[in-house]
């Protein structure tokens, strides 16, 4: 009976029955206009951001053109700038972070929403919200003093000895690098996934669960086959949120990634991300081309986020259409 559609059909003005002025006097139209302006201002700010980034990066855009995306060299002295190592690093660390955080986060959310007793669920949720509010520099310090030694002494050698035949786990184990950055990012984004997914799972109507149980499914079957698919859109939304944070995270990443613009198949290798290089080099960047190149990197990050979010939404649209968005009852 209940639909999973979240979109409420837009209640437009009652056509023709009242004049504009009478609606205005009653505040309806004002409310509509004001809230429209608020919404439009968000779009406007994003547009202004893109315009500003575009204008400030004219110099490197004219000099390098599309080769900016394909060059690996980042040499401020010779004034050769290429974005490829940074794009690679940003994508790899975000991918590692999501690979770790999504199963853990959704699993934890399912536990908190469906399987845990109330007395356990609420205090745990409090701690998770606390984790989500911790500043990223603190996570960076956690990474430097806690994660790096663990990675260097135990995790990376273990991975090397068991899965060392894969190019992913080869090379010297410094403790810093793509894998460590991915792990720290995962720690940072898990609270987001848990919080939002738990809320969405809790909002699934009781009758869905009860119907599944009534038809003879076990507790786990009703959770996994009925409740979670019902909440799919919300869970995907939480993953987008996590992805956005992982792509843009600066301080925590720069403290553990090694800050070396390299592209390597190995996750043990040090790397660099777009946000990290901008944070590191912006204040001391002398020369207009250098500054422009850093700003162009910012534009690239914006583009990357835009494309990834677009793809994710497209994927969500396609899967929702196929399953018609409702729970498989």
């Amino acid at each position: 009976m209940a639909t999973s559609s979240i979109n409420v059909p837009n209640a437009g003005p009652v056509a023709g029955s009242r004049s504009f002025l009478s609606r205005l006097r009653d505040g309806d139209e004002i409310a509509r206009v004001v809230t429209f302006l608020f919404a439009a201002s968000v779009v406007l700010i994003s547009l202004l951001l893109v315009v500003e980034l575009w204008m400030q990066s004219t110099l490197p855009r004219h000099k390098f053109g599309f080769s900016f995306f394909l060059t690996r060299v980042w040499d401020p002295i010779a004034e050769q700038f290429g974005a490829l190592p940074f794009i690679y690093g940003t994508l790899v660390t975000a991918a590692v972070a999501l690979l770790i955080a999504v199963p853990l986060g959704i699993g934890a959310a399912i536990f908190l929403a469906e399987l845990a007793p109330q007395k356990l669920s609420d205090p745990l949720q409090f701690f998770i919200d606390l984790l989500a509010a911790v500043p990223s520099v603190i996570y960076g310090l956690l990474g430097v003093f806690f994660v790096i030694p663990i990675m260097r002494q135990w995790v990376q050698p273990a991975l090397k000895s068991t899965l060392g035949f894969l190019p992913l786990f080869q090379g010297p184990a410094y403790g810093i690098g793509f894998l460590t950055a991915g792990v720290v990012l995962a720690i940072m984004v898990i609270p987001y996934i848990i919080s939002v997914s738990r809320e969405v799972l809790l909002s699934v109507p009781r009758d869905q669960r009860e119907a599944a149980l009534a038809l003879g499914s076990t507790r786990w079957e009703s959770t996994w086959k009925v409740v979670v698919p019902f909440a799919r859109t919300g869970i995907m939304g939480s993953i987008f949120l996590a992805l956005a944070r992982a792509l843009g995270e600066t301080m925590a990443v720069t403290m553990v990634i090694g800050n070396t613009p390299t592209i390597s198949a190995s996750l043990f290798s040090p790397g660099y991300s777009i946000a990290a290089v901008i944070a590191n080099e912006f204040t001391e960047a002398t020369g207009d081309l250098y500054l422009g190149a850093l700003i162009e990197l910012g534009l690239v990050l914006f583009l990357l986020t835009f494309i990834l979010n677009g793809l994710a939404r497209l994927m969500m649209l396609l899967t929702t259409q196929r399953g018609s968005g409702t729970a498989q009852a």
Partner: protein
Amino acid sequence: MRRITGMLLFVLALGGLALAQNALLINGAGATFPYPIYSKWFDEYHKANGSQINYQSVGSGAGIKQVTEGTVDFGASDGPMNDDQIKAYKAKNGSGILHFPTVLGAVVPTYNIPGVNVALNFTPEALSGIFLGRISKWNDPAIAGANKGVNLPANDIVVIHRSDGSGTTYIWTDYLSKVNPDWKDKVSKGTSVNWPVGLGGKGNEGVTGLIKQTPNSIGYVELIYAAQNKVPYGSVKNAAGTFVKADLASVTEAAAGSVKTIPDDFRVSITNAPGKNAYPISSFTWLLIPEKFKDAAKRDVLKGFVKWAITDGQGLTENLSYAKLPKEVVDKELKAISKIQ
């Protein structure tokens, strides 16, 4: 209505207060390296003189940019402005900009080799070879040759450098460019360079943190930072052939060694300086003062400050582990102050 008048009066009162704070405020920005001594100086000068000088340590590059744009009254930099930057300044402001060295700093090689607790000796060939990636093991003859009696392991060297743009990097790469023509060709000097090998740490703290965490690593940090944080560091062979460990005396000697060749605009590099006990990786740090001031009051305060800093102010440097300027440089600077108009 009464609430509105009340608020209005309050706002006016605040505005009046702001206007009343008419004391002269001078703004500067630039290098992070001399920030501790500068803030001490500005504080002492304010007590002696009453004028307020505000300094933001945003980095040498930002300091140069801001003083060229005119957002601040003076700048500070660990590396002198190059000809292009000076031309840009002249083009924007119509007159030139002057460099005044204030204190001396040095950069030291620090390392973390399990089992090695002594101060190692580094030759210029060893240092440049390590940072170029050509020397990859600790027991390489280039390093072992200068450290007889030390048991260096056959482990891979992990190079650590700065990831952020920095005056420390400028001094280090300036030295390596002087002692190794390959380095000069391939990498050259700058606040941010294209490092052939190594991991990047953010700030002196980042580099130190990485070195402490990573066995068999080597990096470079500011002498003051190493001294204050008790980081072990090695000696470097200078141009005269002596292995010198950086300290205040050897750094001042490096400056003294180049006094005869110091140009009138004070833009000089004193790395690899002559002198028996001169520390080869030393550098001045400069205040960047515009040649012409529109505001006479600000000009007089700054002139007075520079004069005070290079004379009386030098007495405060030792406590903070900065080396003082040699006398000849001070004399030359005192004469140059009259160029500020």
